[in-house]
């Protein structure tokens, strides 16, 4: 599958107005969306290098090159996305209690309805956006797959992925013809010691959700990102891709007075693991 994207930065004070404008444009109420997103990074397994060395003698040169490419070039960041609801967040009024619960470990506390073991997950792979061809639009290869529920680190690590970090995406989605409009922002989990700027990251996903109040936006001013996306099943069909691009450009024109939709910097969406 291919994904065509346009992005815009929306200042927090414009968020409410834009929500209403989008609701009017798409003739639908916003669908509120909360997602846990876990970032995994591929790492090279020590055994694989040896295996390659052992098999190389029997392989042809071209095969060796291809294998090398797969092993060295095929290292990507990938995301594991789990939908959550507002009720999943710590329901206790006292945030400190939730913090303690979060930090206390894996034990589930009474009063929180979040069940990590039944959390559904979806693997979302995004390639680095295509270079050059469509400079005014971001196009990238995507793939997604449903993952087992619950503890996700074990299977991911078995596939050669290590957990990097996680965050929550909060936003509202609209559907406008074939365009998915997602007005969202990134929320970060509270960090131990109440020092949100300290880059302290746990080594596995939280089993306990903190109170929603304790999440802090990554962007301090609370700005949102407007993302307009069209997913094309067959990315090799140039006709379809062109049509999709034109639809996105049409939306850009419609929203021109409100926000400036642009393609994103390719390298900021670079999923390759170095």
């Amino acid at each position, binding site marked *: 599958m291919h994904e065509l994207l346009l*992005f*815009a*930065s929306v*200042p*927090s*004070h*414009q*968020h*409410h*107005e834009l929500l209403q404008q989008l609701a009017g444009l798409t003739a639908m109420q916003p669908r509120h969306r909360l997602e846990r*997103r876990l*970032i995994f*990074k591929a790492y090279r397994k020590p055994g694989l290098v040896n295996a390659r060395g052992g098999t190389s003698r029997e392989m042809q040169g071209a095969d060796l090159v291809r294998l090398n490419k797969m092993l060295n070039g095929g290292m990507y*960041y990938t*995301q594991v996305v789990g939908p959550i609801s507002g009720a999943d967040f710590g329901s206790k009024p006292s945030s400190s209690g939730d913090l303690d619960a979060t930090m206390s470990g894996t034990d589930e506390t009474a009063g929180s309805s979040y069940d990590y073991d039944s959390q559904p997950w979806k693997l979302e792979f*995004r390639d680095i956006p295509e270079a050059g061809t469509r400079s005014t639009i971001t196009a990238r290869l995507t793939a997604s797959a449903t993952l087992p529920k619950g503890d996700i680190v074990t299977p991911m690590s078995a596939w050669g992925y290590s957990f*990097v*970090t996680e*965050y929550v*995406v909060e936003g509202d989605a609209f559907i406008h013809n074939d365009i998915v409009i997602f007005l969202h922002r*990134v*929320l970060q989990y509270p960090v131990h010691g109440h020092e949100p700027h300290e*880059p302290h990251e746990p080594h596995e996903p939280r089993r306990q959700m903190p109170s*929603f*109040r*304790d*999440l*802090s*936006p*990554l*962007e*301090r*001013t*609370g*700005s949102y*990102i407007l993302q307009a996306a069209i997913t094309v099943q067959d990315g090799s069909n140039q006709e379809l891709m062109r049509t999709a691009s034109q639809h996105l450009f049409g939306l850009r024109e419609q929203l021109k007075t409100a926000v400036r939709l642009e393609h*994103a*910097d390719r390298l*900021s*969406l*670079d*999923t390759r693991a170095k």
Partner: protein
Amino acid sequence: MSTLSPDQIKSLEQSRQRLIQLTHSLGSLITSLNQSDPLPSWPSLQSQASIISSNLLTLSTHLSENHDLLRSISAYPSPEFPTRTHGNTLEQLLRTKLDPRVEDWVGRGRKSDNNNTDMGLWGTLTSNSAAGLSSTGQGLSGEGNVARLSEGDLAALWEWAPVEANSEARRRNWGGDFTLEERERGVQSVAAGLGLRRVLEDDEDESEEEEEEEEEDEMEVVGVRKSVTGSGFEFDIAAASGGARQEGVAPVVPLDDILRYMTTGIPPR
């Protein structure tokens, strides 16, 4: 009576040449005025006028240089002159008084010379040419200064002209590329017809001001709306996450950094 020296004959001959040049250029101006329809363009008229005026200048310099000679010599017919065939020329040469028409010109020229104001080209031209044509050298003294205003007059003119031109321009209330008639007919249609963007400056200023006012109005409305929604929204945020925030500020973290964080978990700097 003595015969003329070769030098004197030469200076007479020079006078003749210069007069021929002057009459040529005058004649060509007259023919171009008479024959071309519409009238010749300003540049061509001006170049002709400048040719004539330089002719006049050289002629009058020459005449004043040879003033004594021209004063002293007089024409009389020699026996060999072909009187029968060139009687008219002889009569012209032997005249002691000016032709009545020329007398008028000279009179007018002298008058304007004495007044020394309103000395237009034609004033100098007539007086000079009349003086030249008379060929008796009457009153040629000081002719070289006729074409020029005195320094004081020039200064006065320069002092007077800018102020007067400015007040005139103000009184006309004109500007841009349009005449009064066009303006009365309607500048918009003319401007649209010509595809011109520049209309009368006053009108443009006014319309610009109006536009600016409109823009300002819009800005105010938007600003108020933004601040209203912004404050309401800020309240929502504060309730939701409890973070300290300013009102209506632009995002500090670039979009690219947010996307990078979303992609790879590298926190924005």
